[in-house]
């Protein structure tokens, strides 16, 4: 007690000394500005709070010494953002006992926060690692005061201590052995005070690194909660499902990197609109029933089989599965039950093989890295954007509104008919797409032999804009050859751009073609192959504009060529 008083006296003395010095220098300033009015102090408190909201929290707190009016403004400031720069500046957690005294003042400030009628704490945020039991109970108390102040947004980020322990000086370590032991034993999660789960004022709750438990007598009552995000939280199904059932107004839920939760049940939450579930260890099952949710995203790497049940969620518009255990039949059935679905994204779903999708509402459909897909049947009248990144597959497409296609295929060396299949796949888009992006891993991948060109028609005879991206260039490489291939694939194309990396630099070459009329097939036999029903592009090409770009997109060179010159350059 004596020691404490002494420290306090020294602090006060120091502060007085400092202020006296400051006061002197300030008086000089004041004389020069004596006529100016104290304008900012005339501003109403909400405006002052607004200005303060753009400043670092520590500086906000320092405004309390400006004047009496500003002290009052600080007392009613509705936001608290506490992080380690406030808790432990200059690594002071090494000397925790000393630091705790300073933190007691912080706690008092929080406790003495007084808000005028109907005003409550807007936001309380705390971001820290945990050091010792005394500090943990300090964190507990801070959270309780925030709840006592009817906080609306509560955000807690508790981080693991791992790296700092390694950096710790061993001498200090031995003296603080009991603390270190505490840290190592329970460093992973912070035991969230259960009172948080009964805080009626909370509208937004974001928790990281917390452990959620529910004592028997306590019922979850988060009557105002709109948004909840749990990250690296340890809990169990019982608590989570009680929690979800206790938030009648919830609109947005995110559960990611959590542990211990085996199943999540979402029933009858009428306002729930957005669900994100990602990478939760041990999660086996998600049940959704009677929800108005419009957006659902599930990312669960296949550690164990994972079950998703979605029933009567007819408002779903956006659906995303990443590394989720879903099967062809299940997906087909689900999409059938979603009359409003607009956007579907499937990534790395390894169980999918033959996908069949029929949806009149679907507008955007993307598939990435679903390695075992061999067949894709899409009947989607309103689809505008289609993206496929994966292996060769058989495609059956009915999508009259399709305007953007992005295809990226990897080649298996064992498939000798790859080129022919590739052309066949491209031909699926010939009726639909005006704009096509293609990505290939090597430049020789889409080379079509002379024989093949005579045998089959050009696959993209109505494509107008083509963009090709080549991942790796293998020699011999000639841009003219690539253009020749592409002009067979998409004859009478208007614009063509080719992007590639060559000797470490990104390059882009763009072409703009104009043609002589008519474009009707005139029964000519030519080297350009069977481009029926259009006439061979070589005979009607009129003018070509060329542009070379570097990595920043700057145009480096531009040319304009007559048709004949262009042909000479190509051959």
């Amino acid at each position, binding site marked *: 007690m004596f020691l404490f008083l002494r420290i*306090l006296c020294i*602090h*006060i003395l120091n*502060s*007085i000394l*400092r*202020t*006296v010095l*400051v*006061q002197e*220098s*300030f008086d000089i*300033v*004041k004389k020069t*500005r004596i006529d*100016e*009015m*104290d*304008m*900012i*102090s*005339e*501003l*109403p408190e909400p*405006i002052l709070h*607004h*200005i*303060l*909201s*753009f*400043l*670092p929290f*520590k*500086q906000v*707190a*320092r*405004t*309390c*010494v*400006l*004047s*009496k009016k*500003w*002290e009052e403004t600080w007392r009613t400031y509705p936001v608290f953002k506490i992080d380690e*720069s*406030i808790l432990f*500046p*200059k690594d002071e957690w090494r000397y925790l006992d000393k630091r705790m005294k*300073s*933190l007691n*003042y*912080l706690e*008092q*400030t929080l406790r003495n926060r007084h808000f005028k009628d109907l005003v409550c704490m807007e936001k309380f945020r705390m971001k820290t690692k945990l050091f010792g039991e005394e500090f943990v109970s300090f964190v507990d108390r801070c959270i309780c005061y925030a709840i006592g102040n009817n906080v609306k947004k509560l955000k807690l980020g508790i981080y693991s201590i791992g790296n700092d322990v390694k950096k710790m000086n061993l001498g200090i370590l031995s003296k603080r052995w009991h603390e270190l032991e505490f840290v190592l034993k329970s460093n992973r999660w912070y035991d969230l005070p259960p009172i948080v789960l009964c805080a009626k004022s909370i509208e937004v709750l974001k928790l990281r690194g917390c452990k959620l438990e529910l004592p028997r007598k306590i019922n979850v009552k988060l009557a105002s909660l709109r948004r909840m995000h749990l990250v690296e939280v340890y809990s169990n199904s019982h608590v989570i499902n009680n929690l979800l059932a206790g938030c009648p107004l919830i609109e947005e839920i995110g559960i990611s990197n959590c542990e211990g939760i085996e199943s999540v049940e979402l029933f009858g939450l009428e306002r729930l609109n957005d669900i994100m579930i990602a990478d939760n260890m041990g999660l086996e099952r998600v049940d959704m029933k009677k929800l108005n949710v419009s957006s659902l995203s599930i990312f669960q790497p296949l550690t164990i089989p994972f079950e998703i049940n979605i029933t009567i969620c007819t408002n779903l518009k956006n659906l995303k599965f990443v590394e989720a255990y879903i099967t062809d039949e299940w997906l087909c059935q689900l999409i059938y039950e979603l009359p409003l679905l607009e956007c579907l994204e499937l990534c790395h779903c390894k169980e999918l093989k033959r996908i069949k999708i029929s949806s009149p509402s679907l507008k955007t459909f993307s598939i990435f890295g679903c390695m075992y897909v061999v067949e894709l049947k899409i009947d989607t009248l309103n689809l505008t954007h289609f993206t496929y990144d994966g292996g060769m597959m058989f495609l059956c497409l009915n999508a009259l509104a399709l305007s953007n296609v992005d295809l990226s295929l990897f080649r298996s060396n064992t498939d000798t008919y790859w080129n022919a299949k590739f052309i066949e796949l491209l031909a699926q888009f010939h009726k639909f797409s005006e704009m096509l992006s293609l990505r290939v891993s090597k430049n020789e991948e889409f080379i079509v032999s002379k024989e093949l060109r005579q045998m089959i028609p050009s696959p993209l005879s109505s494509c107008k804009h083509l963009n090709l991206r080549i991942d790796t260039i293998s020699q011999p490489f000639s841009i003219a050859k690539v253009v020749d291939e592409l002009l067979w694939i998409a004859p009478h194309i208007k614009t063509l751009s080719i992007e590639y990396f060559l000797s470490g630099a990104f390059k882009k070459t763009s072409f703009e073609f104009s043609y002589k009329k008519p474009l009707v097939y005139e029964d000519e036999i030519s080297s350009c192959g069977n481009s029926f029903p259009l006439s061979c592009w070589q005979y009607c090409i009129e003018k070509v504009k060329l542009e070379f770009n570097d990595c920043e997109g700057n145009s480096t060179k531009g040319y304009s060529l007559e048709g004949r010159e262009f042909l000479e350059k190509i051959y």
Partner: protein
Amino acid sequence: MASSSSSSSTQVKKITLKAADGKHFEVEEPVAMEMETVKSFFVGNEDAMKDMVVPLLNVSSEHMPAILDFYRNHSEFRKRTPPPPAEEVKAFNEAFLENKSDEQLMEMIMAANFLNTKELLNFLTEAAANRIKNKSVEYVRAFFGIENDFTPEEEARIRAENEWAFDGLDED
């Protein structure tokens, strides 16, 4: 047809605003409606627009042209598709703040608060915050001309109570 469309374009409704010092400003209706205070003046009384002069008690005529210019440009930015590049908006905002003294900035904040326009108020309060960011207490006091009405003892007590905010300073 042609005559009616041309007449409608020449007859853009104007609203007369009166600044605190009595000077009048004729402002196109959509620009005037950016200000909630002006808008609420006419709610349920749209016919009054022609002959009514709206008094703006807290806005000096010195700042009116700049404020109106802000509304015009930002409403154009909002309407444009595709949205303007961030640099263009930034360039306008920087030019807007250039040559504005701290005093002028404060007066404009009061004006924006009175006119009740969120966008302008947000923009100006952030600009004010940027001018004092990471500055010392003494600097901030002098900067805004705040009179310190604490006795040295009182100030020392407050500093001690908030000691956690004064250690480990990283001020400019």
